[in-house]
């Protein structure tokens, strides 16, 4: 494809000279049946699995069921114009998407076509949509963190580069919001983002795009979207296409954070496709390979050894549960594939604890080895305090009058720590601020403030410490540690801060 600057005349000249030069034999077939986005085609005897087919009118399809008498294909686009008897050509290409740096900041469909009206982009290459995940030799264990900018995640359930962390919860518990916050926090980091929307409302996707844009994170993010109104095959392709785009960056040695929002709808789309292709249904009418559907996708998240070029893909798949049922088919599948989960609870969400992460039920299997030293130090005691608080809080529902002073103190501390871990949307907190606030809260700094005032004092403390102790903050940020000297300085500063506040 010539770029705008290229001499178009020379290209045409070449075309004229070679006119008729490229002759190739293509496989053709005839549509014998077309319904609900699926076509049965007679002929096409030489077609390969997941090869792109060309229907009349420029509509593309993908060959999926290669059978004795023909081919079952899904139609990637408007299937209403396809009739019985139409001629279908094979293209000889396995399904692939364009990849490249120019795609950052764009909203694309799963075939890499722009949807944001900003015109064409130049792509340097194409990558196959389906790719076998990196093997054992190329991989490296997770040892670098992805900073979410959210205290509760970075401190309690840290996620490392190359990890697959499931975000699971009922509807409206802030799953998408949490993931978009994580993407927003990467605006100044070297991590690139890919947000894949599968079967979402177009209005919600538009909202997310504008949220990313307003917070300056769209420029290093690709949004791949197959909306609820798009045909199921496009929704099925979306996460693989997004992953292929991410793999391009990984192949350049870059780190990528990819959000699949959400895999429940992806499984639905695949179920629809499979049933229409007459593949036998299994449990809950999902086809037999629904586990492999997600396992092969999530295996492609990896951290590559520097000897093989480095780079990583961190995956945040989202699963929406029905009425908190994490033990149904698709959630258990994805839980078993991923390296841990962030469990979001409607009760927490409704009682104002946002992000509504249940720190007791959330797990990270590899992330803690990637946690930065300073955070690890302060998070240890935070975790045990929160665990104790969680068990006491249920007990204390029946009244706190008769409790001993130690228990009372623990309840008071827990309530304040819960306040500290709350965080608004679009307000990621830098690493050094997270460390200092958790350090102060752990040492009981906020115990003298009323619970409902804690968040206000937290904000003021961040401002205070950024203004008055810049050298301590930059030291923590650079060394990634918190040494004793700085601890003393922080404690002193907090006493001073407290006296100005209580005056």
């Amino acid at each position: 494809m010539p770029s705008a600057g290229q001499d178009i005349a020379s290209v045409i000249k070449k075309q004229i000279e070679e006119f008729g030069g490229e002759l190739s034999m293509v496989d053709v077939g005839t549509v014998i049946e077309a319904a609900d986005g699926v076509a049965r085609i007679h002929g096409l005897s030489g077609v390969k699995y997941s090869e792109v087919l060309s229907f009349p009118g420029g509509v593309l399809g993908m060959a999926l069921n290669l059978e004795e008498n023909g081919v079952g294909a899904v139609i990637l686009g408007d299937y209403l114009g396809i009739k019985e008897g139409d001629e279908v050509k094979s293209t000889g290409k396995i399904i692939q998407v364009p990849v490249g740096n120019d795609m950052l900041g764009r909203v694309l469909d799963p075939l890499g076509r722009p949807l944001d009206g900003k015109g064409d982009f130049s792509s340097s290459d194409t990558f196959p949509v389906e790719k076998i995940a990196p093997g054992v030799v190329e991989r490296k264990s997770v040892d670098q963190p992805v900073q979410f900018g959210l205290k509760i995640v970075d401190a309690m359930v840290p996620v490392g580069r190359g990890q697959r962390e499931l975000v699971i919860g009922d509807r409206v518990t802030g799953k998408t919001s949490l993931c978009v916050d994580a993407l927003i926090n990467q605006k100044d980091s070297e991590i690139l983002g890919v947000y894949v929307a599968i079967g979402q409302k177009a209005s919600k996707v538009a909202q997310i795009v504008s949220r990313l844009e307003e917070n300056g994170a769209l420029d290093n993010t690709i949004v791949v979207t197959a909306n609820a109104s798009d045909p199921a095959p496009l929704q099925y392709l979306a996460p693989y296409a997004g992953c292929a785009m991410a793999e391009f960056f990984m192949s350049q040695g870059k780190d990528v954070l990819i959000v699949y929002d959400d895999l429940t709808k992806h499984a639905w789309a695949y179920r629809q496709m499979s049933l229409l292709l007459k593949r036998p249904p299994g449990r809950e009418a999902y086809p037999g390979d629904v586990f492999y559907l997600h396992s092969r996708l999530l295996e492609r998240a990896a951290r590559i050894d520097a000897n093989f070029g480095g780079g990583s893909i961190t995956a945040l798949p989202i699963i929406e549960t029905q009425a908190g049922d994490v033990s149904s088919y698709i959630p258990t599948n994805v839980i078993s594939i991923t390296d841990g989960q962030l469990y979001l609870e409607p009760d927490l969400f409704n009682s104002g604890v946002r992000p509504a992460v249940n720190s007791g039920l959330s797990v990270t299997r590899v992330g803690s080895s990637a946690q930065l030293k300073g955070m690890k130090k302060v998070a240890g005691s935070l975790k045990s305090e929160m665990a104790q608080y969680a068990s006491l809080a249920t007990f204390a529902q029946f009244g706190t009058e008769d409790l001993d002073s130690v228990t009372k103190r623990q309840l008071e501390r827990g309530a304040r720590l819960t306040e500290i871990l709350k965080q608004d949307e679009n307000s990621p907190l830098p690493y050094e601020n997270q460390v200092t606030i958790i350090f102060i809260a752990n040492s009981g700094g906020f115990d003298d403030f009323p619970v409902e005032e804690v968040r206000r004092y937290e904000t003021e403390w961040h401002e205070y410490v950024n203004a008055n102790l810049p050298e301590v903050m930059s030291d923590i940020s650079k060394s990634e540690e918190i040494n004793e000297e700085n601890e003393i300085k922080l404690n002193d500063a907090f006493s001073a801060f407290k006296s100005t506040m209580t005056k």
Partner: protein
Amino acid sequence: MISPQRYAKALFEIAIEKSLINEWLKQINNISLILDNEDVIVLLDSPQVPENVKFDGIETLFSDIDLLVKNLIFLMTRNRDITKFNLFKDIFNDLVDKHFEITRVQVKTANQIPTNQIEKLKESLLEFVEGSTVEISQIVDENILGGIIIRIGDKVIDASSKTKINNMKDFLLKGAA
């Protein structure tokens, strides 16, 4: 439901054993002309019509064909596969062609090709198809403007001017963006 391919293979094997290939081929092609009549197919495929009525109908319609071919029609009717007889016929024809090493080629051009050129085309096609004979059927279609479209079974070689011009148009439109 049994695939028409199975019927075709089975009948073809019997035809080879009895060396009745050409006779049966003719009969099958004749049967398919009769079965093109929708009323006959409806009668034979209807689950409401008793089997003996269907069989009587077959006996009267196809009185002059070989017993084994007739048996195939009985069998396909009983299995309710008779609607796929046309597909069966095509596959049977393909099997016969394969047996005699005949490759059928459909050639589409904008103008009628003179006979000597057809012979030339046959020779050049023989080089890359399996078999010893090439049979060409010609179709004239002015819409393709010029050039030639050759169709061999599932494969198509499209060297028509129309496609080339379309390809060029796509290329230029993409390039200009």
